[in-house]
């Protein structure tokens, strides 16, 4: 993992989350620009996975490989699965769901940085 990149992605995730919650306050359903923001965030996370896998093959040793891989997979799944759930019933609540999903990204990345740095769980 590259900590700087993880911080940058976390900042973007926080930005999209704030954007979503502003739209919730404005009583708006999810609109295309917000969904594109979530999509862009997913792309940044995919790059993060590629970086991590390359560094793992190159000899990176996280505190627990199993835990790290679980977070890696989880970080790729949370936005797509959550977005499907959010859009199954389009209301203002869907927008709030997208905000909550974005908030999980910094948490996942923080945990991954900890495990990458040697934490065992």
């Amino acid at each position, binding site marked *: 993992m590259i900590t700087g990149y993880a911080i940058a992605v976390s900042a973007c995730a926080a930005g999209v989350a704030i954007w979503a919650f502003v739209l919730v306050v404005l009583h708006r359903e999810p609109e295309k620009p917000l969904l594109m923001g979530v999509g862009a965030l997913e792309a940044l996370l995919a790059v993060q996975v590629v970086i991590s896998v390359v560094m793992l093959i190159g000899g990176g040793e996280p505190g627990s490989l*199993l835990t790290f891989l679980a977070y890696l997979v989880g970080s790729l799944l*949370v936005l797509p699965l959550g977005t499907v*759930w*959010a859009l199954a*019933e389009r209301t203002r*609540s869907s927008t709030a769901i997208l905000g909550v*999903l974005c908030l999980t990204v910094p948490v996942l990345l923080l945990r991954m940085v900890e495990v990458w740095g040697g934490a065992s*769980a």
Partner: protein
Amino acid sequence: MPEQPATPQRTPADRPATASGPGRVLIVVYAIFAVAATSRAGVQIATRFDEAPVPYSLSAFAAVVYLLATFALARTGTMWWRVALASCSVEMTGVLVVGTLSVFDSAAFPDATVWSNFGMGYLFIPLVLPVIGLLWLRRTRPA
């Protein structure tokens, strides 16, 4: 119900389903905790169960409660509403009991469970979640 009159009467049958509107946000948070607790308990039990069997069993129990609550809230019908009520109640009890025990007898809880210290390690969300869950279930109580 698009073909209802413009001003439908508010009857108990109009109560929203648990998996509708704001309930869907609640279900997402429950789902996130279900996945997090299940994965964490799975890793703890698979790799070092002997170190602390009680907290790790509690982690697994919490995981089951979150999974059940998520699933029950996402379903409709009186039976699932009752299952959701039961799981949210167990969750509320669990976080209060485990939270209190872990504060007064931290030696018994060497490694964190979701409910240790009232869920402090999880921004106290485990403490707030069952409260919101139970309030939502009251709002959506079947007639």
